[in-house]
Structure formats: structure tokens, C-alpha cells
């Protein structure tokens, strides 16, 4: 006999809430890191002046 006015179960909602939180935070972290590393690699490319000799 369950007491009245008490919510029973609901673990699926709990798991969904924690899963959404983990996925969204991980996806945002991955998004920031990937955008940053893309820009960093672009910044590392040497910019050569016109007339400067190229290797090979």
C-alpha cells in the first residue's frame, strides 16, 4: 500500500534529465574546443610576403 500524495517511480525522467545535461555540456565543450583548435591551426600557418622565396 503506497502512501497518498507521493510520486512513485519517475526514474526515466531523472535519467533523461541527467543524460541531457551531460550530452549538452559535453557537446558545447567539444564545440568550443574544436572551434578554438581550428583557429589556432589557422593562425599557425605562415604568411609569406610576395617575392619571398618558397621552399623547394
Amino acid at each position, binding site marked *: 500500500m503506497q502512501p497518498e500524495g507521493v510520486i512513485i517511480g*519517475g526514474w526515466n525522467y531523472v535519467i533523461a*534529465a541527467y543524460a541531457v545535461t551531460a550530452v549538452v555540456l559535453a557537446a558545447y565543450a567539444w564545440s568550443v574546443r574544436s572551434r578554438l583548435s581550428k*583557429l589556432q591551426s589557422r593562425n599557425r600557418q605562415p604568411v609569406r610576403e610576395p617575392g619571398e622565396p618558397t621552399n623547394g
Partner: protein
Amino acid sequence: MAGRPRISSLSGLLGLVLLLIGSWIGLVVAPPERHMGDVARILYVHVPCAWNSLLAYTIAFGFAIASLWTRRARWDHLTVGAVEIGLVLNGLLLVQGMLFARPTWGIWWTWGDVRLVFSFLLFLLFAGVLALRAMVDDPARRGAWTAIATIVAFVDVPLVYFCVRWWRTLHQMQSTPETMSAGIKLPMRINAFAILFLACWFIARRAELERRRQEVDEAPEPARIPVAGRRVET
């Protein structure tokens, strides 16, 4: 300067570890709430996301004022960082709130609740800040528009916080430490600090991203380098 990325990385790592500990306590150790049962465990992530979302928007408001006052790009970059993580947490709290509302209130959403409507409006307002920013090419104007839009959008933050006291609808009023048992307070506090540390890491990294993006935008066009055996049109 080299110490800053290390501090922000430590903040991110600390946030991650605390979030794992807080979630484990919230899911496994904490007892079910007297009336809401296990569903109350959603509050251990929902409430910290709500607190930190409002805090991130408040910090963004401060950065926006500093950006307008000093016209320094650094404040503009930090404003974007704070707005973006505030938006992510705002989106999360809306979804978590719906997942909590369904088993406890019997509905996913209602337009008759002021807290829900103001929270959704807050999401739209700050999404609008980032959309407006994306439409402006000139860095100086972009910074000014972002700051002004952030200040305007911030008007909704106190409304979200105080609306449950001013208008009594479905959403409950804020709890206080005196009205919560120790078993509930611990995971909520750990997760609140976890998300705060993570938010600091996100703001620092996002501001760094914006700084580098501006450097790329302001850099001179790379010279066209002739490739052997190919004629370069000028």
C-alpha cells in the same frame, strides 16, 4: 599570461570532478524526497543550472557595461563567453524543468506560469543577442551592439528571479537552506559549484576563441604565393 589557461583548465577539471561527485550523490546516495520521491533528483541539476544561468547573464551584464565604458575588445569577448554559457544553461534548465514538470505537475509546459514564460523569454532574448552579433561585421560596432543588447536582455533576469514572489502561479517559490534537509542541500551545493567552475572554464575558453577570431579577421590578407609551373593572375 601562460598561467591563465592553466587556471581555467583547473577550473574546468574541478567542475567536471565535482559534477561527477554531485551527480553520484544526487542519484545514488541522497534519499528520495518525502512527496516527490525519486523525481526530486532532477532538482540537483535543474536548480544549479538555473542559478548559474542567471549568474552568467549577470556577469555578462557587468562585462557589457565594461565593454561600453572602456571600448576594449577584451570585455566584449568576455561578454560573448558569459552570454553563450548562460544560454546553454538556460536551455538545459528549460528541458530539465519540463522533465520535472511532467511527473509532478502532470504537464510538460504551460503558458500560464510566469516563471516558465519569463525563462523562455530570457532564452529568446539572449539568443537574439548572439544573432544580432552575428549580423554585424565591423568589430567596434559589433562590440557596442552586443553590449547594448545584453544590457537590454538583462532586464528579464530579475523578473525571472522575483516573479514567483510577485505572482503566484504553478512554479514554487525559491527554497531556502532552512527549508531543505541536509540530504538535499549537499548534492545541490556540490553541483552548483561544479557548474560554476565549468562556466568559468567555458567563459575563458569562449573569450579566447573570440579573441583569436578577431585576430584572424584583422590580419592582412595572406599574399598570393606563386606555385611552380602555374601562372598567377593578378
